[in-house]
C-alpha cells in the first residue's frame, strides 16, 4: 500500500466513514500532502463508498482544498468586490511580474503558487491577500516587492513585517 492509501485509511479510521466525514478527511489529506491527488480522492471515495467524482466535486468547491500540487508559499489574492475596487488587479499584475507566473500557476522552483480567492474578511483594509495562513492587508506595490523579496531570500512568512500588527 502506498503512503497516500495508508493516510486516507487512518483518517477514515479517525473521522469515520460517513458522508459527513468527507470534509475532515479531505482537510487531513491536504494538511499532510498539501493537495488532493487523484489517487487520494479515489481512496477517499473507496473508503466512504461514494463516487470519486463526488469527492472531486466537493473538493473543487472549496478554495482551500487544493486539487493541484502547490508551491511552498501559496499566495491567495482576494478577488471580491471591495478589494477589486481597491486595485486588486494591479496587485496581481505586480505579483505576476515579480514571480514570473500567472494566476493559477506554480513557479518552476516549486516555491510560489499564485491564486485568487473570495473575500478574506479584511475588506476594510483591502486590497488583501493570504500567504499560506498569514493575511497581508493594505497592500501596495512596494509592500508586494518587499514581501516577495524576503520570501525569495528564504525568510519565514511569519517573520516579515506584517502590516496587520
Amino acid at each position, binding site marked *: 500500500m502506498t503512503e497516500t492509501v495508508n493516510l486516507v485509511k487512518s483518517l477514515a479510521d479517525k473521522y469515520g466513514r460517513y458522508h459527513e466525514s468527507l470534509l475532515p478527511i479531505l482537510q487531513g489529506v491536504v494538511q499532510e500532502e498539501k493537495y488532493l491527488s*487523484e489517487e487520494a*480522492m479515489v481512496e477517499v*471515495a473507496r473508503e466512504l463508498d461514494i*463516487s*470519486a*467524482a*463526488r469527492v*472531486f*466535486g466537493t473538493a*473543487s468547491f472549496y478554495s482551500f482544498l487544493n486539487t493541484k500540487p502547490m508551491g511552498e508559499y501559496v499566495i491567495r489574492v482576494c478577488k471580491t468586490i471591495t478589494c477589486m475596487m481597491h486595485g486588486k488587479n494591479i496587485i496581481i499584475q505586480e505579483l505576476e511580474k515579480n514571480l514570473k507566473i500567472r494566476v493559477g500557476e506554480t513557479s518552476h522552483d516549486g516555491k510560489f503558487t499564485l491564486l485568487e480567492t473570495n473575500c478574506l474578511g479584511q475588506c476594510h483594509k483591502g486590497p488583501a491577500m493570504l500567504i499560506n495562513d498569514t493575511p497581508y492587508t493594505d497592500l501596495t506595490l512596494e509592500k508586494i516587492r518587499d514581501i516577495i523579496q524576503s520570501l525569495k531570500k528564504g525568510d519565514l512568512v511569519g517573520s516579515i513585517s506584517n502590516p496587520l500588527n
Partner: protein
Amino acid sequence: MNRVNLNIDSIQVSVAQGTTLLNAAKELKIKIPTLCHHEDLCVAGNCRVCVVEQVGSDRLLPACATPVSEGMEIRTNSLKVRNARKTVIDLLVSEHRADCTRCFKNGNCELQQLSSEYLIGEDSYIDLVSLKEYTIDYFSPSIIKDDSKCIRCQRCVRTCDELQAIGALTVAYKGEDMKISSFFEKPMYEVICTNCGQCVNRCPTGALVEHNYIDEVWAAISNPNKHVVVQTAPAVRIALGEALGMPPGNIVTGKMVGALRRMGFNSVLDTDFTADLTIIEEGNELLQRLKSVLVDKNPDVHLPMTTSCSPGWVKYIEHMYPDYLPNLSTAKSPQQMFGALAKTYYAKKMNIEPEDMVSVSVMPCTAKKYEANRPEMHSSGYKDVDLVLTTRELAKMIQQAGIGFESLENEEFDSFMGVSSGAGVIFGATGGVMEAALRTAYEVVTGREVPFKGLNITPVRGMDEVKEATIKIEDALPEWDFLNGVELKTCIAHGLANAKIVMDKVKNGEASYHFIEIMACPGGCLGGGGQPIPTNAAIRQQRSDAIYREDTGKPIRKSHENPEIIKLYKEFLKKPLGHKSHELLHTSYTERNRY
C-alpha cells in the same frame, strides 16, 4: 389519508397531504413549466422556472418543491409569475449556446420549447456565451457532453446518483464557474460512466446527447458496393412508435421492418434471434457451472453467475466489482453475437464477402455503441457491429426518409437470423432474460416445461426493484440427477442502484443465489437510455405490457425451439459452448479504474 383544500387559479381543489403544488395543478390540467424537475428523480428546486404566486405573499414559490397547505390561494398565471418565468428562461438562455438549428435536440428540447412558449426575444440580457470557455466532449462513441448547452439543472447528476448509484457526474466548482463534471473533468470515455444514457434520456437540453451515426448509416446504405444488414433489438419495436407520434405501448414490429426495407437496408434481421441464441449459450453455461461447483467442486468456477447482456452493467462491474468478473457469464450480448455471426455464418450463406458487409444495429441503448467499439469485439476478423443507432436515431431517419410510418403495412423479417421466439422478445423487460433462461434450462434438465401456467413465470416479472424467485428441481433427467432437489435461487435487479444492493449482499455473504439477472436501466432495455423521450414509470409499464403481449402472441415461446437456432447449431456451431461458440459468441472482461 388527510386531504388538503386549496385554491388554484380560482378553482377549488382537494388533494392528498404532501402533494406538491406542481402535481395539484396537474390534477386540474394546469401545466406549470419545469426544467430541473423529473418524475423519476428527487426534487431539486434549483431552476425556478416553475414559480407560482401565493396570494398575500411577496415571494414566489417553486411549485415542484412546495407541498400544498390548507387554504392556500395560488396563481399560476399572474403577470408577476409570467415575468419571473420569462426572466429565468432569459437568463438561462443568455449563458446558453442557443444554436438550435444545428442542435441534435432541435424539436425535442425542453429549453427550446419554453423559450418559444414565453417568446424570449432578442438581446434582453448580454450574451455571455462568447465569454465562457465551454468544453465539448466528443470522444466517447456513446455520449456527447456539450457544456455550452448545459443549464445546470442537475437532472443528470441525480440520475446517475439515484437511479444508477454511480455518480459519474458531479457538480464541480462554484458560482459562475460551476459546472457539471466528471472526475477531474476527464473525458467521459475515460471515467466510470457506463454509457447507459439514462442521463441523456433525462437531460432537458442538448447538453447530453447520444453520439449519432445517422449520416454514416445513410452513406453505407447508398454505397452500391456494400451489403448493409440491420438488426433490431427487442425493446425497439415496442417504443419506436412513440418517437413517431404514436401513443406508448404500441407494438410496431411489422411497420418497423417495412420502414427499414424502404430505407434501403439489404437484409432486415432480428436481434431477437441472437437473444434466443444467448439463452442457449448462457443457459448451458449456467448448467455447466452448477455441475462444476456442485459435483466437481472446482474452486475456479464461480457462482452466482450473472447475466452479461447489458453492456452498462458489464462496464459497471468492471469498474466497481472487479473481483466478481469471473462471475459474469462469458456469453456476449445478443447484439455482439449477431455481429459475429453476420460476418461469418450469414455472409457465407449469402455469398457476401464480409469486408463488403456493413453491420448496423438499432438498440434502445447508448451503451451498445461503446460495446460495439470494444477492441475484443472483432471475432469475425472484422468489426462485428459497425454502427449502432438508438431508437431515437432510427425514428429520425424514418422521418428524414419521409416514410408515413403509421400507414405502413406490416412486413416480416428476412430469413434466416430473422425468426425468434417469445423468449427472445421478453429480453427487453426486466426479468425477461431470467424467464427465457428458465424456460430453456428447466426443460433441458427435466425434459418438462417450467411449472408455470402458460409458461408465464410471473414471479420474475414486474417493476419491483429487486426480485427473487426459487425454482425447485425434481425428477431431473439422468444426466442432471445431481440437481434433484436443488432449489435454484435467482435474483433480478434493474437500474444499477439496485444492482449495487444485490452485489453488496453477495459480497457480504448475505445472499446465496445461483443466477442473477441485471439490467443497467430501470425497467430493463424497454427503459433504455436510447429510447424515446420522455421515459417515465407509466410509460415503462406500457412498454412492458406490450412486450409480454408480443411474447404471448408468438407461436414459439422457448428459445431452444426456434427452428433457425436449431439449424444454426446443426449447420455451423455444432453444439452449445462448443469450439465455434467460444470463438464467436463468448468474450472476456477487463478490470477498470474506480473513477
